[in-house]
């Protein structure tokens, strides 16, 4: 035990937890912490331009490394600006510790300057939060925050520290024992149930793995075990937006992403399978579509660390509560140990059926020599970056779905996107966090021009810290997904989804001391993407694309998986069905 001030305890706890970088923005109620930050060199502080950016940057850092992301912001507006990021992290289960300053304890409740009820406001958007009212509680709160953020289903934790506590002196220690005896996330799955799952898998005729972000959160080991199990069984696999990269997209057992903008083969397989093995996925409405028509003929095995995810939207026939890595390890072991002979004939027929769905080529689009199609832009981006050490972040909207469809991921932790909350403005600050964690890597934010303007100021952060992030804007001048829904569902009345006064992104880049590139013709795309990669500075790439392009396939919400809409270029289904397929359908 060493005596120190509360502000010094914050630094000591961060250092003890192995934190290298903390994202933040100073203000009156965190001045003692900033005074401690500047007098040490264990923890590196990154100054953002807005507190929302700090939280997204920490999310990018956390998701690309598997470590806890950290943030420090001031009281009042500092804390409220962080709320969007906190909610985003809660929805996508990202481990964060966010330290907020608070007015001195004797002023709490007095409507003091820059006071807000931070624990009250953040209670529903954090996994847990603390208001530390005595210096004796501070070391424990700080260390427990890391434990809670990272264990079980990860999530954001807020530690609200009044300014007088930051000045107060006390004994610093790292607690050995966790105070909340009720908090014990279950990591080992029930072995009897895992055995039952193996039996169900052995008997399945049309099985399917449906995987999600829980695998990425569980870590590399979980992804490797999944790959092993998928290989052993020979079953097809699809994934949610959040789970991309857990299984390599280049593999022939991969069906592509499922859900609202998933592939024809993934969604039809979900609809027609007789056994669904859900691993670390939560049956979100963007996945299930219309619930009463969701995969009507299947038994469902649901593996999740959070019991409240099970039976929330879809009734599971077999629920296994536990960490993916632990459960998958048991599954691989049991599958190997038991002399299971899957019904090869049935599986072959299932794969033939899937083959006919694949032949539909649902991601097809009509390319152009005149105008850049957004899908083509992402295809070229992939071709020119696939052999590099690349990380992709996105904003939210059409470009995000096209990125998920046309940029295949082979490894986990390479894909950072706002899935649950759908936060426009996530990608740029997230890329800052990713680049900081991976200094030598190529970090690209695939963006839309509307989203990126929400947190554009973080380009200044990237410039300040020499973080050469590449902001690849698919500029269609529309809030593309809003426009698409208006076109399909609201009689083509494009209410306020067109931006009439966009900035000149090349000049904007120059104003920020970054590098600007504009590309308007498909013929110059490759050359300009190469330029973007080669420039050792942050780049704003204004890729001017077809403003009318829509994102397909699409399950209009409230419809079933077998009611997908396709773009006009996709092959007609009649042409794609083989003789074997006709027997199955």
């Amino acid at each position, binding site marked *: 035990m060493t005596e120190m001030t509360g502000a010094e305890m914050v630094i000591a706890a961060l250092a003890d937890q192995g934190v290298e970088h903390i994202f933040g923005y100073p203000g009156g109620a965190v001045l003692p912490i900033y005074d401690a930050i500047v007098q040490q060199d264990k923890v590196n502080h990154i100054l953002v331009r807005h507190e929302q950016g700090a939280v997204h940057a920490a999310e990018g850092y956390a998701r690309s490394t598997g470590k806890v992301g950290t943030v420090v912001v001031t009281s009042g507006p500092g804390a409220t600006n962080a709320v969007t990021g906190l909610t985003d992290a809660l929805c996508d289960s990202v481990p964060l510790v966010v330290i907020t300053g608070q007015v001195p304890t004797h002023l709490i409740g007095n409507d003091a300057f820059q006071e807000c009820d931070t*624990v*009250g406001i953040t*209670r*529903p958007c954090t*996994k*847990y939060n603390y*208001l530390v009212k005595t210096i004796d509680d501070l070391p424990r709160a700080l260390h427990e925050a890391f434990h*809670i953020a990272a264990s079980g*289903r990860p999530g954001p934790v807020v530690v609200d520290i009044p300014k007088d506590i930051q000045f107060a002196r006390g004994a610093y220690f790292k607690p050995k024992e966790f*105070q*909340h*005896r*009720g*908090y014990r996330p279950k990591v080992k799955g029930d072995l009897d149930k895992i055995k039952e799952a193996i039996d169900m898998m052995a008997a399945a005729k049309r099985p399917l793995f449906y995987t999600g972000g829980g695998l990425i959160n569980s870590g590399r080991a979980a992804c490797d075990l999944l790959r092993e199990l998928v290989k052993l069984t020979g079953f097809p696999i699809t994934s949610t937006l959040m789970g991309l990269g857990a299984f390599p997209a280049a593999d022939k057992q991969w069906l592509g992403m499922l859900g609202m903008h998933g592939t024809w083969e993934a969604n039809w397989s979900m609809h027609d399978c007789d056994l669904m093995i859900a691993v670390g996925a939560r049956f979100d*409405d963007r996945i299930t579509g*219309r*619930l*009463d028509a969701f995969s009507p003929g299947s038994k469902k095995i649901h593996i999740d660390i*959070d*019991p*409240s995810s*099970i*039976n*929330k939207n879809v*009734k599971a026939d077999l629920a296994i509560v536990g960490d993916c890595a632990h459960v998958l390890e048991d599954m691989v072991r049991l599958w190997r140990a038991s002399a299971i002979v899957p019904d090869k004939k049935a599986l072959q027929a299932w794969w033939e059926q899937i083959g006919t769905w694949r032949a539909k080529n649902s991601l097809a689009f009509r390319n152009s020599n005149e105008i850049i199609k957004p899908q083509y832009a992402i295809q070229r981006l992939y071709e020119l970056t696939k052999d590099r050490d690349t990380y992709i972040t996105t904003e939210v909207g059409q470009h995000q779905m096209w990125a998920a469809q046309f940029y295949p991921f082979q490894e986990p932790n390479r894909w950072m996107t706002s899935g649950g909350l759908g936060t426009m403005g996530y990608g740029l600050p997230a890329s800052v966090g990713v680049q900081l964690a991976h200094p030598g890597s190529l970090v690209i934010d695939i963006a839309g021009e509307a989203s990126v303007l929400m947190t554009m100021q973080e380009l200044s952060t990237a410039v300040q810290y020499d973080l050469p992030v590449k902001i690849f804007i698919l500029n269609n001048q529309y809030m593309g997904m809003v426009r698409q829904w208006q076109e*399909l*569902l609201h009689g083509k009345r494009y209410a306020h989804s067109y931006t009439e006064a966009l900035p000149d992104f090349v000049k904007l880049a120059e104003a920020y001391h970054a590098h600007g590139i504009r590309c308007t013709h498909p013929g110059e795309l490759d050359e300009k993407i190469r330029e973007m990669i080669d420039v050792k500075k942050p780049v704003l790439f204004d890729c001017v694309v077809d403003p009318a392009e829509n994102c397909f396939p699409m399950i*209009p*919400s*409230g*419809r079933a998986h077998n009611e997908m*809409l396709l773009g006009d270029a996709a092959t007609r289904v009649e042409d794609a069905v083989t003789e074997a397929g006709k027997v199955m359908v």
Partner: protein
Amino acid sequence: MNTTATATTHYPASTATEQVETRILCVLVDNEPGVLARVIGLFAGRGYNIDSLTVSETEHEKHLSRITVVTRGTPMVIEQIKNQLDRLVPVHRVVDLTTGGPALQRELAMVKVRGKGEHRVEALRLADAFRARVIDASPESFVFEITGASDKIDSFVNLMLPLGLVEVSRTGVVAISRGPEGM
């Protein structure tokens, strides 16, 4: 585009209606600041019902409080409520006393009645029948204390209505399982 005539809206059809059940849940929590707000906020934020809620510290040394909540929902919603409660960090245990075997439930009420003459006599007579105690009296009023299951208190209050009922203060339901085992 390929839209059918039935698709008048893109919003999901409401899911099939299931039978709504009433349940008594006992929640053991760390007695720390904000814990009640976490529990209530969960119910409010996710649209669950609270029919009755009682909370008090039950083990001082261990800083444990017991929350008894009476709630309603379909079996799927009830399961969600239990799982969501269980996942709150300061929650130790959630026990469903409606389905977890035989249980006792009690509520305490204080009932103020104002009246004279025959009404006063009748109120006293009924109080005696319901084993309610007089805990305050004035020349024209009584305050009764009554303990029992909620429906017994409901009946007593209804009987007092024509006799000059002024106001009622009720604790809400507390419950405990029968037999030697604890929660």
